[in-house]
């Protein structure tokens, strides 16, 4: 397995190129070849979702995608949401709702929820629970993650248009 293939992947708007073995997973390429260590590996079995990134806009388990399959694709990782000084609204809500403890699963949840709220701007509580059930968290018991997604959805719905009575 030593033949390598050159691939180009755009990560958070920056194009990267690397020679990889065909068996090298996308998450290893992102973490160890490109240095996007915000994406985490929890199981390498596609169960836990800690490695969730957006591949051409869709959430995928990057441990189950080979780097070569992502050649030419546009990947978005947690580093693309907001940095420490400028957290995105979703990241802010995760903090204020205490939706993270150890933070290991959090990047995966943030990417999952980013795609979910884009596709379901006014989700029901049941839809939120179903989406959040895609990934595993061992610290929070999920309660505050569900609350954060609810708040993010409600906030996003308000910010989509002027609130009633808002004349500015």
């Amino acid at each position, binding site marked *: *397995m*030593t033949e390598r293939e050159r691939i180009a992947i755009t990560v958070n708007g920056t194009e990267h190129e690397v020679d990889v*073995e065909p*068996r*090298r997973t996308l998450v290893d390429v992102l*973490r*160890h070849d490109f240095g*996007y*260590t*915000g*994406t*985490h*590996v*929890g*199981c*390498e*079995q596609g*169960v*836990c979702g*800690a490695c969730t990134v957006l591949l051409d806009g869709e959430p995928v388990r990057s441990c189950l995608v080979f780097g070569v399959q992502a050649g030419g694709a546009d990947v978005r*990782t*947690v*580093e693309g*949401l*907001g*940095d*420490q*000084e400028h*957290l995105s609204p979703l*990241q*802010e809500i*995760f*903090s*204020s709702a*205490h939706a*993270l*403890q*150890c*933070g*290991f*699963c*959090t*990047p995966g949840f*943030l990417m999952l929820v980013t795609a979910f709220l884009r596709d379901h701007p006014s989700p029901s509580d049941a839809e939120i*629970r*179903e989406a959040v*059930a*895609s*990934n*595993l*968290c*061992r*610290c*929070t*018991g*999920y*309660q*505050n*993650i*569900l609350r954060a997604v609810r708040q993010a959805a409600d906030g996003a719905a308000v910010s989509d248009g002027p609130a009633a009575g808002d004349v500015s």
Partner: protein
Amino acid sequence: MTLRVEDARLLSGRGHFVDDVDLPGQLWARVVRSQMAHAIVREVDTTDATAAAGVRAVLTASDLPDLVLPVRTRVIQESLEAFQQAPLARDRVRYVGEPVAVVVADDPYAAEDAAELVGVHYDELEPVLDAREASSLDGPALFPGRGNIAAELEMGYGDVDEAFARATHVTRAELSVGRHSGVPMETRGLVAAWTDGRLEVWGTTKVPHFNRRVLADLLDLPVERIRLHATDAGGGFGVRGEFYPEDYLIPYLATMTRHPVKWIEDRSEHLVATNHSRHQAHLIEAAFDREFGLLALVDELWHDNGAYIRTHGVIVPDLTLSMLPGPYRVPAYRGTAHVVLTNRTPCGTYRGPGRYEGTFVRERLLDIAATELGVDPVELRRRNLLTPGELPLHRGLSAIGTEMTIDAGDVPGLLDRTMAEAGFDAWRAEAEDLRSGGRPVGVGAAVFMEKSGLGPHEHGGVDLLPSGAIRVTAGSTSLGQGVETVLATIAAERLGVLPQDVTVVLGDTDLVPDGVGSWASRSTVVAGSAVAAAAERVATLAREAAADALEVDPADLRMSGEGFGAAGYPQRRISFGELASHASEGIGARETFEVDRMTYPYGIHLAQVEVDPDSGGVRVLRYFIGYEVGRAILRDLVEGQLVGGAAQGIAGALLEEFRFDEGGQPLATTMADYLMPTAAEVPSIGVLISEDWPADSNPLGVRGAGEGGATGCGAAIAAAVDDAIERPGWVRSLPVSLEHVRTEA
């Protein structure tokens, strides 16, 4: 502003976990593990692996000195050395997953390929899998000549025989708890490097100073030539950061190869290699008088510790016995534990060790007794719970080597408040209604006592920096529980600043002089008290320095925001930064908080569940926890601990179990087999945080909150399942078995 000081880095992908550490010239290790539960190792053939592309070294036991991994928590005098694990198996393997060889290669893929080329030739032996059978001397033995019993523990007080002789009723039950573990989202991992005559290690977060002493001892290096670096940890729960075989192997390989060596456990390894826990069988008896008063408790337990004694020694069965009487008035008690070795993964602690198991057993016994006595289970508890006037109570038992004194509290009061706050009577009425309509819904309650704040000491330091920032150091470690925020808050409150202005440095053995670490719900209690004392000292020193600088009386200074101002003179101000810059030796203080006893939080768990008669599945409809924490530093974080703990406890009652086949092969080696709960299984959990009984063991008055979310789950869920299927006392083992529920419902 973020809620916790940890949050911004973790939310933005800028955390610093061990797999984020990549060093120039780094090699990767892969451990070759036993595929047999019990076998003689005839030969380990490393020829092909050594010759494989990219391989730098392959090690077996014969390449290593003869040594065993240590016991960290010693609670008995007897040596356990004969049962402690060697870093690589020598002659005999005793569980599937036991390290047999280790391969080092240029990259992790090459290391994994080469590991498959290591040929291990075994003579298979009959596995030992039943702890109660294995405790007899007949049959196969893991340690020939030593049998399968690592230790026998016995403790108690009062005249048990006399109590049973005069009892009007005796209840007996055989009960068991399955094998669970913490299963943090981040697997274990280590990076070790030999740099300029020093060994540096990343990835040991939990008890770094202990692990450094062990490494120094095993590698024959002075401690000052070893530095353990802090890394973020993706969950601890008792299992992460203990000294495992790899904690010796990876540093050893770094010193041997003179290259940085990295090892990241994969999930399948984790599920067989990292400590398991729980797994006890109990035979418990209670004696009652005519008024339903408990006269005595007797418990005999078989603790399946797996193949070896690891760092936790026999602390789990010890804690099971010492905490078994819990919050009850128990005039006489005798507890016996057989610590049995079997051909399974070795065991250690997991959130609420011994209390999850003991609470299940004791509360089940009370439920069964209530049925036999014809009394309401909650009423039976009320009659036997310790009342505020009976405390402090010297229990006459020792827990983790400390004399057990239940300091203060009102358990019956918390029971009443919790039931009222949850609306438990309405839950019960609703369940009865639903049952009469054909839906098997039931409710259950459990009462328990926890322990926290173990000493013997912890260090805390506070320094004013020239920038005006404040730096806190402490011997605790950050495992995701929010201890950085807690310590920052404690310091900030005493210096009139915001927690965000405080930098917290933990877990680095060069930057923190000593530490006992983060376990046993101790960090807020013990490290928090040390940091509070240091911050108070710094506030005094800074006030004196400011008084000198401003030429005013210290008492006339007001501390605010970033420094001091003289009352009535708005222009006479000096900031913390200026004070730190002007003081020739800086302004700082280091304090040690010492304590020789634990504090005892207590709580109530309430559950309402529905059984699906077709599938046998149990769905938790409602859940509520009442918990006395003495004082909460940050209520949101206490609630987060309780809810997160409950998710683990509920899963242990209904879903999670490490099962093995009759040959000792593990059946849960992926996350698809070990059933961790998702958001679909964890119910909404209500919490009542009580701050009515501050602990007198520490100046903050806090009782640890890390474990009580899990402790009562097995007991409360079991009672609710019984109620749903209208078979009081039916659940006798955890996790509640689906096929059994189906038959009964």
